[in-house]
């Protein structure tokens, strides 16, 4: 199988979806000749022309708002917002139309559309370029929220998101874009949206994460297993909303202990929601408080200090050991 970066894998998913279905089109700033600021749409303009790969004016609300209209008219727009920080400009169209039109029209106008956007820190970027605000979307009924962690699942999930009958917020961990390569098969591959993945089975503690944080999580697990003899069960959330509570609760019912890691801010973060669900679904099995290792409740810092804001493998190891030690 060819080895691909996440950027290449995403490009592949877009290409094959466009090839199969003329209704799939791409809209966004600089997605045309320029191939997007991260080159995810590279070559597609050349291949499919500007009818299907549309450079838009610089207005995110306009992009999402018109894409909603294209979806009403039966197309399947895949929009790109250059950085997730700029989805704020489109918040009204996302909340009021993209998320609700299916419901408002009782299914007459399903919102088959995808909002792709890079999220997260770690690339020494300026302000508003490192946010992780998946909570906003998880709290918004009608949306699905998907966050891949590597090239292969990125490709499979993006293909599934484009096929999905519902509007999908597709958060791409930009720190992973070119960080490593993975085998990604030539043949089309999809993965079900709404399902989490147990990446490693274990019996001592459940470690839950997603997106870019899966890298330090994997690193930490290796160390925890090898050096500390802690048999960690590692879960990659993949779909943030609707959340696969069953998998999470089942795991914690087995291990009794849990640590959750994400970049996003802590208050009302995804970790809070997971804690609430485990409290509901596996309370009697809990042997220690569930530990949240998350971004702090402060604006993402300027890049000379961003590394201290982000959880790393050492922090994860520390949190797991602390949770193991709790009696």
């Amino acid at each position, binding site marked *: 199988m060819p080895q691909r970066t996440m950027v290449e894998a995403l490009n592949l998913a877009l290409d094959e979806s466009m090839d199969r279905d003329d209704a799939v089109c791409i809209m966004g700033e600089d997605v045309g000749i320029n191939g997007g600021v991260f080159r995810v749409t590279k070559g597609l303009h050349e291949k499919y022309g500007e009818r299907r790969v549309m450079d838009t004016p610089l207005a995110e609300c306009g992009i999402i*708002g*018109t894409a*909603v*209209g294209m979806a*009403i*008219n039966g197309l399947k727009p895949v929009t790109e917002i250059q950085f997730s920080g700029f989805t704020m400009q489109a918040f009204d*169209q996302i909340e009021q139309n993209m998320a609700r039109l299916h419901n408002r029209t009782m299914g007459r106008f399903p919102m088959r559309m995808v909002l792709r956007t890079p999220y997260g820190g770690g690339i020494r970027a300026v302000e508003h370029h490192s946010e992780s605000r998946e909570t906003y979307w998880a709290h918004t009924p009608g949306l699905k929220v998907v966050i891949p962690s590597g090239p292969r699942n990125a490709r499979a999930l993006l293909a599934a998101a484009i096929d999905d009958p519902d509007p999908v917020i597709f958060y791409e961990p930009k720190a992973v874009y070119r960080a490593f390569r993975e085998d990604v098969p030539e043949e089309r591959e999809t993965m079900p949206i*709404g399902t989490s993945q147990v990446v490693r089975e274990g019996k001592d503690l459940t470690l839950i994460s997603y997106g870019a944080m899966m890298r330090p999580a994997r690193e930490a697990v290796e160390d925890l297993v090898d050096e500390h003899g802690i048999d960690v069960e590692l879960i990659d959330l993949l779909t943030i909303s*609707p959340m696969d509570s069953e998998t999470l609760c089942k795991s914690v019912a087995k291990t009794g202990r849990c640590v959750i890691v994400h970049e996003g801010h802590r208050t009302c973060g995804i970790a809070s929601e997971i804690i609430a669900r485990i409290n509901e679904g596996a309370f009697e099995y809990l042997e220690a408080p569930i530990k949240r290792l998350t971004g702090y409740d402060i604006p993402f810092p300027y890049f000379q200090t961003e590394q201290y804001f982000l959880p790393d493998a050492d922090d994860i190891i520390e949190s797991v050991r602390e949770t193991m030690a709790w009696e």
Partner: protein
Amino acid sequence: MDTTPIDLGHIEVLQILDEHAQLDEALDPGYAPEQLLRMHRGLVLTRAFDQRMLTMQRQGEMGTFAPNLGQEACQLGQVIPLTRDDWYSPSYRSFGAQIWRGWSMERLFKLWSGYHEGFPPPPDVNDLPFSIVIGSHVLPAVGVAMGMRYRNEPHCMVVNYGDGASSQGAVSEAMNFAAVNKAPVVFVCENNGWAISTPLGKQSATSNLAVRGIGFGVPTIRVDGNDILAMTTAVEQAANRARNGEGPMLIEAITYRMSLHTTADDPTVYRSQELVDPWEARCPIVRFETYLQRKGILDAEDAERVRAECDAEVIAARDRFRTDAVARPREIFDHIYGELPAELEAQKQAYLDRLDRKGVE
């Protein structure tokens, strides 16, 4: 460096039937008598519906809604030139246009009394649901039109919004997207002078809203919104342009909100009757009836009969609504996603159990 002064064009104000119901012969669109009478009946029905809604609201049978007294010609004029393949994106004050487009009155009664099933456009009508959030439907309307171009369909979209809505950034973005993409869309800015208590002078520093199009390269026309012939003529031309691939157009329709903003509003707090009075003389229905009478195709008795028939139609619809409208609390989890995810299925089950506990059907 190009130093030629910019040609800003000229913005017409179109009037065909003047305030004394005198026809500008040169501009007569030449509708057949049956068509003129259909238009007349549409106006009368709109007003009959409006008045019935107000009565029902006062009797507690209807939620808050926005009357459209005096804006009937403006609204019908937007949709009369449209085919069933064209699309229409109404505002919350457009029920006359919605009825013309094929929304049943029962559906609209349901909509305004809080039944979800009243909200979606009927299956065979190419309309958007209107948006409660001012201006937020305009970008989707442009997107629908962009979709027509994508598929090379020779139709158009007409989208309605108010003078207040024109201040929303999203409406400016919509004009820009439409212009850049040559989208087949006709913007109808229904300038009725007020956004709740805010008069045009506080909404904009310009004396008109047609000029808004100029800034985005959208050709513009001003129309007397109380003159149904001017409205249909302007919309027809703009629609044809759009269908022919010539891009968007903005129509500023000048009319007046004669009544309450909504039934929750008390305009006496912020506007004096003297401002409203002159517009009484501009009533679009009286103007059109006078014209039809002069033309000899409608007499006073006919007018009375049409009014009575329309009233009866509205009352019949109201009666059907009264028997039809049933709250369906068990269905609030339907139509959230294509398929209800497991997580929500669990919430739904708990909810249904809760309804059982409360004895709710």
